């Protein structure tokens, strides 16, 4: 079966790949581009572990085909830090122990960053509903919600 040639931008870098028409964006990121930060927890768009941004929109990369990435701009967890400088959310997640096993963390960071870019001053309820598509089985979400709220506060004060 012939493969599809795709040109796209991932974390600011132009990349090209060949993929099967059935491969998801998540498959492509993980298996063809070696970006294994996005995780497959379900493959059905229910767990959010594969969350990435596509042209600034939060999507489950397991629900989008790799071929659909043509001409798009993709942002993954690997692109959140700038050089050695971690994003405030990343720092706060470590400080607050907002992760235990850490498998959901990449997706939650991508989703939380997307939220704070849209809404720098979210209420607890808004954070909880925004992250309702990102399952975490370890933490009970308590420390995650606190980390996001406190990062938002720090970022507001810094700006």
């Amino acid at each position, binding site marked *: 079966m012939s493969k599809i040639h795709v040109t796209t931008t991932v974390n600011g870098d132009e990349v090209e790949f060949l993929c*099967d028409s*059935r*491969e998801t964006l998540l*498959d492509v990121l*993980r*298996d063809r581009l070696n*970006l*294994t*930060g*996005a*995780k*497959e*927890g*379900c*493959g*059905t768009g*229910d*767990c959010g*572990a594969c969350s990435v941004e596509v042209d600034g929109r939060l999507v489950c990369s397991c629900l989008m085909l790799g071929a659909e990435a043509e001409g798009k701009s993709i942002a*993954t*967890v*690997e692109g*959140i*830090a700038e050089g050695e400088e*971690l994003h405030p959310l*990343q720092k706060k*997640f*470590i*400080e*607050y*122990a907002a*992760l*235990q*096993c*850490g*498998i*959901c*963390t*990449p997706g939650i*960071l991508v989703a939380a960053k997307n939220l704070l870019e849209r809404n720098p001053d979210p209420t607890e*309820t808004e*954070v*909880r*509903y925004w*992250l*309702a*598509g*990102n*399952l*975490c*089985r*370890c*933490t*009970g*979400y*308590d*420390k*995650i*919600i*606190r980390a996001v709220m406190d990062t938002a506060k720090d970022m507001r004060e810094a700006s």
Partner: protein
Amino acid sequence: MALDEYKPQKGGTEYDPEKTEFTFVGTRPDRPDGLDKVTGRAKFGADMSAPGMLHAAIVRSPHAHARIVKIDTSKAEAMKGVKAVVTRADFADDIPFKPGMGGELWNVLENVMAGEKALYDGHAVAAVAATSALEARDAAKLIEVEYEVLPHVTDVDKAMAPDAPVIRAGTRDRSVPEGFNENVVRYHESGHGDVESGFAEADLVIEDHFKTEATHQGYIEPHACLAMLGNDGKGELWCCTQGHWNVQKLCAALVGIEQSQLRVTASEIGGGFGGKTAVFIEPVALALSRKANRPVKLVMSRSEVFRATGPTASTSMDIKIGMKKDGTITAAQGTFRLQGGAFPGAPCEFTAMCAFAPYALENVHQVGYDVMTNRPKQAAYRAPGSPMAAFAVESVIDELCKQLDLDPIEVRLKNASKEGTKASYGPRFQRIGLVETLEAAKAHPHYSAPLKPGQGRGISCGFWFNHGGETSVTLAMSEDGSAQLMVGTPDIGGSRASMALMAAEELGIPYENIRVTIADTASLGYNEVSHGSRVTYASGLATIQAARDTVRKLKKRAADKWGIDEDAVYWEDGYAKPSGPNAGEFEPMHISKICAKMGATGGPIVGHYEATPEGAGVSFATHIVDAEVDPETGKTSVVRYTVVQDAGKAIHPTYVEGQYQGGAAQGIGWALNEEYIYGEDGRLQNSVFLDYRIPVASDLPMIDTVIVEVPNPGHPYGVRGVGETSICPPLAAIANAVSAAAGARLRELPMSPPRILAALEKQANG
């Protein structure tokens, strides 16, 4: 037995009551693997690749119970890109079947790859490896399996009925009394006193029946592995597991190679909760790899995780408790029937033994049945068996308090187990912290806060044994005075931070100067699985002992340099110091100075410790929860939640809180939403997260925690395991809150909206 009568164990692993001041222990530093986890570079099970790697897929039975008449692999084998196909014939054929748990290795093999029969929907029957994941999946569809469908049973009570189809004749062991269906495979009975006379003394006796559905551990990372095995019998395996030595042992036996020839490396693990203490796909990947002579990667889909890996047991329980008007419990009796899938092993004994552990009882009697059905083999799930027992027992206690108009915490305090109490499971308790958790709960502002209309408050206690287990730790000094600590228990919730804190405490060097690695099976002695809340207890104890061994060696080097006896040297804050004027006048020698010269003063300085610590202290918790029930829809919201639990000693309090919160959240899911739903056809109907709904962020409130510290006599710092006890009280605490809010007692889990509405309707109709 009082603490001062406690007999020290060999090796100084007992609690040191003098050690009350800590430099590092009890602080909250960043975890060592934090950066890896927030940048996406941490490598989990599915994140590893190898040159020439193949991908694999498994063919699974669509039937709950069927004889496998024929498997035709020819079409798959002829497909382009397919490199290997395996069936049961490709695994060891010399593993004996035995009744009960004596034949556990055979059970594991039978579960990994079906033999003569498929025993549940999702049971593996064949597997294929091909050059891509898509090709492997296509090839799996070409494997033709001919089945002769057999009658099936998935409900525990139905499986015990005389006419139920028998899953596997000859499985029951000799513990089972006469007269039961052969699906009852193990039996437990324990207790003391005379319950009948106890009930006669009671002012009120309540007897009730409870059921809980199976739930899944629900780790977000599906099982994944990368295997390489050659026909020389040497193999390499990378996988997400709670215990890689256990994987090594089981896989080696199942594919028929020597244990030591298989090196297993544990990846970062995306949650386990007991469900990753078993093997499922790893032996299959090894068998495929051997046949293809290439590395094979095998990753489960979410649906495979639900259909074929460990849910917890489902239960059917009868509880009878007698109480006097003053709240004294006079007798307690429980019957616990656990369904554990198509294999023996449902933890009926733990359910029975944990059920009444919080209470000092003169008359108690408990019976457990391990029952087989056509469902996946149950796996351990956080305090296996205990949460269900607590649900049933604590619901009845709550109802007694209600009907006798007594405060539920006062009643629990009145009957609480203490040091010296004869436990419901037999022996006397050592030092325990149940009373302290109850007092802390009573004093917590949550307990006296006003409730809004439509809300109810519930409380519950919970108990778990905790575990020690085989443990090896090595601590190697570097020339600059930093330390490499190798432990063998996979880090699921931040345990590397706790290990580094304990090593720092003993060595007297900064936390950051210690690098903790989860060593592979070739780099350390045997380590039991990360289960039984054992990691901070047992690997922690071993870390302390390995550090003390290192300090002894460091002191020796200083003593040699000074030309004095090593007993005349003591260790403080990272320095060797002469212990008094008699020892001589010497400038304290820093660890970095000793290590800089170690090659020339006797060679590498390495401390180690290998043992099976046997002092894991049991643990108790008390939870308070407020719930609100919507009478229109039957939906329950948890509006406030407080966990009070005895940690013995919290090494890294933030991660202790995390265990408390996580256990509560899983308990909330178990209580309100989660369940395995089987159709009449015996097939699992909800094998995706959309239909098997675990709590999401918008379902939960913040979860308050109170860490109580009643030291465990069996650990140098007093540590008790904390991972499991936190899931024991929630089912009952929420049921009691729901009962208070709705004015109707819920006796079946989950308390999903249809069940709540049915209970409300039944209540309204009297």
